[in-house]
């Protein structure tokens, strides 16, 4: 039935096109129609080019106004975040500047120099000066961007062990995350997937004989103390995953067979983040959308959606299978005291095993 309806719709579209073609052809029957653009076509399309330029500007403005309040441009929650945001804003400003001018030139020229019979085009094949200008200007701009970018990159990726970071393992599997804290010795115990023993609840494959492993703590929620550098060691047990923490401007793939790392220092607790204007706006907006959706759900006899409260999230950002879209872990950033108190409540590895 559906297939039939679709076919009928398609047939109607084809007939409509056929009729349109006939109308066009009849309208132009007087003069020989060679299917080559005439002056009339040139004029019409020249004006449309200006219209299209307006459309590009319009969609840019609408997008910026409606969706430009971007969580990835300000209000980061890590110490290196503002440097990335700065670089991002500088790059975006350059992009918008170049975009506005080049699109204007392109479409305006298309309008200004639309063809007319008898008009002569300028024979202008080469100009070394012009070409030197638009080679050298990008070189200078890019040199600046490269230097700034590489500086930022090296600062972010270079982990300074002398800062005494807390070492935390992020462990990925289809389709959830675990965190492993190194305990009092701040050294993660050795681990390998070959040591996984589900019957004994050794789910991450820790080496039970390794003294460093004894005080390790495995959790399903990631808690971080504000202001302390954290060094993440990433592992995956099955396929590639990517630990993406957008609010902290942090991302690193988790690769089976190797340990990858990424470090940052959280700069805002969850509470502080919730109190920022940007997040309050976002939460209000999301809740309005959820209320609307809930109305529809209730009308269908289903449960309404819960109210949304902001939390940092760690989400998977590398395609990993069927439930890739649903692989996330809550991150809680708190004060050092709260963090220590929380950590104390968690079971150490040696006590979590089933004998």
């Amino acid at each position, binding site marked *: 039935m559906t297939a039939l309806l679709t076919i009928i719709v398609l047939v109607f579209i084809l007939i409509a096109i056929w009729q349109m073609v006939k109308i066009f052809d009849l309208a132009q029957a007087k003069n020989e129609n060679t299917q080559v653009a005439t002056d009339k*076509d040139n004029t019409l399309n020249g004006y449309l080019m200006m219209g299209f330029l307006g459309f590009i500007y319009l969609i840019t403005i609408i997008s910026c106004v409606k969706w430009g309040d971007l969580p990835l441009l300000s209000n980061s929650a890590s110490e290196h975040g503002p440097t990335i945001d700065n670089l991002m804003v500088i790059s975006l400003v350059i992009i918008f500047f170049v975009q506005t001018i080049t699109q204007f030139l392109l479409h305006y020229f*298309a309008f200004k120099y639309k063809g007319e019979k008898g008009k002569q085009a300028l024979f202008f*094949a080469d100009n070394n000066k012009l070409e030197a200008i638009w080679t050298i200007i990008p070189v200078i701009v890019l040199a600046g*961007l490269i230097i700034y970018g590489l500086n930022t990159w090296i600062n972010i990726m270079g982990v300074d062990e002398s800062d005494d970071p807390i070492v935390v393992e992020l462990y990925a599997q289809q389709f959830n995350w675990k965190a492993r804290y190194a305990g009092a010795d701040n050294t993660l115990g050795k681990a390998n997937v070959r040591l996984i023993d589900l019957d004994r609840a050794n789910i991450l494959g820790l080496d039970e004989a390794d003294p460093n492993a004894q005080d390790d703590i495995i959790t399903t929620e990631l808690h971080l103390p504000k202001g302390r550098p954290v060094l993440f060691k990433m592992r995956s*047990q099955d396929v590639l995953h990517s630990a993406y923490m957008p609010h902290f401007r942090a991302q690193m793939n988790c690769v089976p067979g*190797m340990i990858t790392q990424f470090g940052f220092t959280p700069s805002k607790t969850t509470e502080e983040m919730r109190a920022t204007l940007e997040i309050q706006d976002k939460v209000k907006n999301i809740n309005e959308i959820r209320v609307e959706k809930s109305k529809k759900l209730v009308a269908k006899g289903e449960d309404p959606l819960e109210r949304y409260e902001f939390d940092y999230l760690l989400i998977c950002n590398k395609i990993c299978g069927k439930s890739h879209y649903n692989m996330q872990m809550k991150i809680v950033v708190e004060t050092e005291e709260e963090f220590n108190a929380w950590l104390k409540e968690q079971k150490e590895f040696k006590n979590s095993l089933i004998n």
Partner: protein
Amino acid sequence: MSAHADTHAHDDHGHHHKETFVTKYIFSMDHKMIAKQYLVTGTIMGVIGVMMSLLFRMQIAWPEQPNVLFEALLGKWAPDGVMDADIYLALVTIHGTIMVFFVLTAGLSGTFSNLLIPLQIGARDMASGFLNMVSYWLFFVSSIIMVISLFVEAGPAAAGWTIYPPLSALPMAQGGSGAGMTLWLVSMAIFIASSLLGSLNYVVTVLNLRTKGMSMTRLPLTIWAFFVTAIIGIISFPVLLSAALLLIMDRSFGTSFFLSDIFIQGEVLHYQGGSPVLFEHLFWFLGHPEVYIVILPAMGLVSEIMATNSRKPIFGYRAMIASILAIAFLSTIVWGHHMFVSGMNPFLGSVFTFTTLLIAIPSAVKAFNWITTIWKGNLQMNPAMLFSIGFVSTFITGGLTGIILGDSALDINVHDTYFVVAHFHLVMGISALYGMFAGIYHWYPKMYGRMLNKNLGYIHFWITAVCAYGVFFPMHFIGMAGLPRRYYTNSNFPLFDDVSNVNVIITIFALIGGVVQIVYLYNFFSSMYYGKKATQNPWRATTLEWTTPVEHIHGNWPGEIPHVYRWSYDYSKPGHDVDFVPQNVPLKDGEEELQH
């Protein structure tokens, strides 16, 4: 060399009049027929690829809601009309594969390299007509296998078009990594063989079969683009083949090239010592040059069409060639920018940031040269010209965001989000498609001897242009809001609820843009039979293909191959009565060939 080819082709010309249906339309060795075969096969694959994108766009906009189209087209993959999460990933994967390889590599490069190389350099045919035929039929077989893979019990390949192992290597990780992935790999291996045969042929033909007077610096930019593209293909495609073969070994013969330490579904697998990062290196060693394999031919076509329709020489001919060469060289040393957060050494990331951002320089030169080409021109707004201007527009919009993605520090945060989707769709997806459409509108009279309807062309262009921006421009913003790509639904946790309405807008634009392609398909197929008969040189262009008769003949020129006396951009040259001087017109007394 070229004299020999002449006489040889003349003999052919004599013998080949008694052609059967099979030798003329199926196992043809004539480059013009092979070009058309590539185009039609590419078009069919394109329809499949675009329809898939419409299906998964509907899922993203209206997640997990019953849809009659899903029920009709996806069958068991859409129980009660709700799309399954596995088939969502499969659609995304096959859409990417088909569009990148089957449409924009084979469909674009295969069509226009085959059609234009012999015609524009003044050759009777490709260097090896037989290899050319084999190349097309390998492509055909690989297309068929790719389509068959859609009907496999456990589903087609679903690990993304980049097929990163271990996901693609382990059938227990994902349904699509079983027989579907095997067929995908076999199809791609055959595809690569096809592409290599084609590329070798193009390179040899351009180097050896140019007509008298056709020096390398008189070649149209189309030929330069095809030539360099073929060289990049020869350098990089074999690496993908090796990656595919190693992956087949890992999958079927128990080796551990890409796999190590894996625990899945309650058991430890035997793999030890391999690295998925090695696969990423091998894949992107092709994968990145591949985007230039896609875009360079489009650039060549657009340069040619812009000059012709502006009635002006292309601005900065030598700079254009230099930038093609620079882009080609740089394209082979930037692959690591896809891997900034893959776990490779951060120092390597710095190197790739440096090389990647350098590509912006030749790209900027090209963009400014195109803009200067239309400056003070006498623009003939044929549909091909509109698509060329559209190409420059989307190439700029999409290309500019490359300076964000190529910058490793910024990539940390937008990697694998919709920002990337927006970037590459504009800069190499939409742009290359525009280049392809421009080429089709421009050379349709050469291929089929008839004209495409221009008014339908205008409708096609303007609606497509608006929809392309409508789809991909807002995507930058949801990407900068942190929304990851390849998510079956974004409604599972509330963090991204505020972008759900943007996704609806994008899908509506996509649906309109998709449906309007019917106008083009109608135009394409009906004009073959009912289009206005073409004249020999409808666009009043200078290149050699317009000196051949409208009716296709074996060997292209009935008499001798024309000699070439000038470059291909003598439009509106002072001292001539007409605003174009074909390449085969000798210089007048005292006329200087421009020192371009």
